[in-house]
Structure formats: structure tokens, C-alpha cells
């Protein structure tokens, strides 16, 4: 039933897998970052309750990783379709885009979670460490941003 070698019937499989990978892996990273930082904030809050709102920053940054995945997944779903309009080239570009943003997101989520946990506990004891924690978190967030950039670049290669 394959209509052509460029757009066989199974070609949407990899595009859909890209959309799914984008949101699944970045959600896993965001969940890890939120949970790990949340544990640190709960422990720190007992001694310094007024620092809670400042310490929500790692949680917000982990949430942004999920938004990167959401944006790339929504972009991919906008362009996928059935064969023969959707070729294997389109499909594999979308697959790669989803994997890029997803796996970069899970890595960044791990970094933000562990740094956030250690950072909020340390900032409660030494307030001068707050700026340092923010700088390290920004470097971690930028890892997710790199995956997002590559994902969007790959998505833009698909013209239909």
C-alpha cells in the first residue's frame, strides 16, 4: 500500500514520536526539578519562612523547561499529517526536533533540581550565596534552551 518511497504509509510514526518525546522528556525533567527543589524548600522553610518566595525561583525555572517541550510539541502537531503529504524527511526532522528538546530538557531539569535543592538550603544559612545560586541555575536553564533552539531550527526545515 506504500504510495512512494519518499512518503510510505508509516512515515507519520516518527513525527508523532517526536511530538510525544518533546513533551514527555521535558515533563520528566520539569517534574524532577520541581520535586527536588521542593524538598529543599520545605526543609529550609522551617528555619527561614520569609525566604520561601525567593526560593521558588528553581521551581519556576524547571516549569519553563516543560514550556519549551510544550511549544515544540505544539509546533510539530501543527505540521504532521498523513502520507503522502507528509514525507519521511518531514517525519525524521520532527523526530529529531522532539528528541532534542526532550532530552536536553530532562538533563536541564536534573541540573536545576539538584542545584536548586542544594542552593536553597545553602542560601538559608548564608544569604550572600543567593546570587551565585541564580547564576548556576541560569546556566542549567540555558541547556534546555539550546535543545529548544535546535528543535525549532529542525522544525523550520519542514515546509508544507
Amino acid at each position, binding site marked *: 500500500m506504500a504510495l512512494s518511497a519518499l512518503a510510505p504509509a508509516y512515515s507519520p510514526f516518527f513525527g*508523532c514520536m517526536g511530538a510525544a518525546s518533546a*513533551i514527555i522528556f521535558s*515533563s520528566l525533567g520539569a517534574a524532577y526539578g520541581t520535586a527536588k527543589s*521542593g524538598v529543599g*524548600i*520545605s526543609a529550609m522553610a*522551617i528555619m527561614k519562612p520569609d525566604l520561601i518566595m525567593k526560593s521558588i525561583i528553581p521551581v519556576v525555572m524547571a516549569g519553563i523547561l*516543560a514550556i519549551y517541550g510544550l511549544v515544540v510539541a505544539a509546533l510539530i*502537531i501543527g505540521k504532521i499529517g498523513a502520507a503522502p503529504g507528509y514525507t519521511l524527511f518531514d517525519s525524521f526532522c520532527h523526530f529529531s526536533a522532539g528528541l532534542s528538546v526532550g532530552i536536553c530538557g530532562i538533563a536541564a531539569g536534573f541540573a536545576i533540581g539538584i542545584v536548586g535543592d542544594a542552593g536553597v538550603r545553602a542560601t538559608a544559612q548564608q544569604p550572600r550565596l543567593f546570587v551565585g545560586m541564580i547564576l548556576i541555575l541560569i546556566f542549567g536553564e540555558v541547556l534546555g534552551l539550546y535543545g529548544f533552539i535546535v528543535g525549532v531550527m529542525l522544525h523550520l526545515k519542514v515546509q508544507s
Partner: protein
Amino acid sequence: MGAYDSGRGGKGSYATGCYAAYVIILLVFISIGLFYMFSGRGSEFDVGWVLESISSYTWACVGIAIAISFSVLGAAWGMFITGASIVGAGVKAPRIKTKNLVSVIFCEAVAIYGIIIAIILVQNIDDTTPEDWLDNYNTYIFNGYCLFFAGLLTGMCNLACGICVGIVGSGAALADAQNGELFVRILVIEIFGSAIGLFGVIIAVLLGNNRKISSS
């Protein structure tokens, strides 16, 4: 101690066992492919044929099953993580028990996300006639993949979200037992965690809505 030490390996043997299992499965696939290639039948090792021959109904139904089962698994996991902390901390501070039920309800919401998506996906499948199947072959194959991945991503995002909300809820209960004002502020973190499941629902609705495999 020796009688209860039933063949348990050393530290990290579970991880080594998992790694060994993955490597063995990968080597099996690679060696089957190499056997085909070296006997001149390389074109018969066809991933695309496998993807197309698995019925679209299989893809759709497995996706629906994963959506509901992994969402409920995430919700349950979160509930037992936070529930154990609530009752544990409640021994010395029983006032926390009613306020911290909110954490358990956040975990329940994750299961509700899963069942909503599963019901949306179920509406898409119905019986087809053979002529209808041949006419819309490519569309039905595509719809099968969409339903599978919509269900898979719902299940996985809700699994992550449920565990996250459970862990944060556990921290909130323990902090609440020490100081009653902390709960509402740590609840903000739980709301961020809940948003992760919501993103999964949004994408699943975009991917899986109106992808019909039916003649009617």
C-alpha cells in the same frame, strides 16, 4: 542473617542487571539484522513493514490503555508518598490532617486528567468496512499513530506529575507540622508541579482529538 540473604547480589547489582538486560536485547536485534544482511535478505529486515502491519486499532487501544494506567499509577504513587508523610507527621501534630488532604486531591486530579484523555481517545475508534479501510488507508494508519502517542504522552507526563506532586506534598506536610503558616506557601510549588500534567493534557488533546478510525 544467612537464612534471609537469599542470593541477593552486592550493591548496584540491580542496576547492573538492568544494564545487562538492555544490552542483551539490543545485541539480539543487531545480530538478527546482521544474519539477514549477510544471507542476502537484508531488505526483509523491515522496520517500516512492522509499523504498518501492526493494526491501527492495536496502536490506538494500547495508547488508550497506557493513558489511563500510567496516569493512575502516577496518582497512586504520589498519594502514597504524601499520605505516608501526612499520617507520620500527624502523630505529633494532628491538626495538619484536614489541610493536607489538598495534596492528596492534587494527586487525584492527575488521575482525572488521565481518564479524561482516555475517554476522548476512545470516542475515535469504531468499526470499519474493508472498502472504507482501503479508501482511507493512509489516514487511518496516521490516526492510529496519533492515538497511540497521545495516550503514551498523557500516561508518561501524568506519571511524572503525580510523583512530583506527591514528593512536594510530603515536604509540605512535614513543614506544616512544624509551623502552620508554611503550608499555603509550599502549596505554590505543588501548583507548579500540577501544571506539568496539564501541559501533557493540552498536547494530548491537540494530537488525539478527532483522529477517527471509523466508518460512521
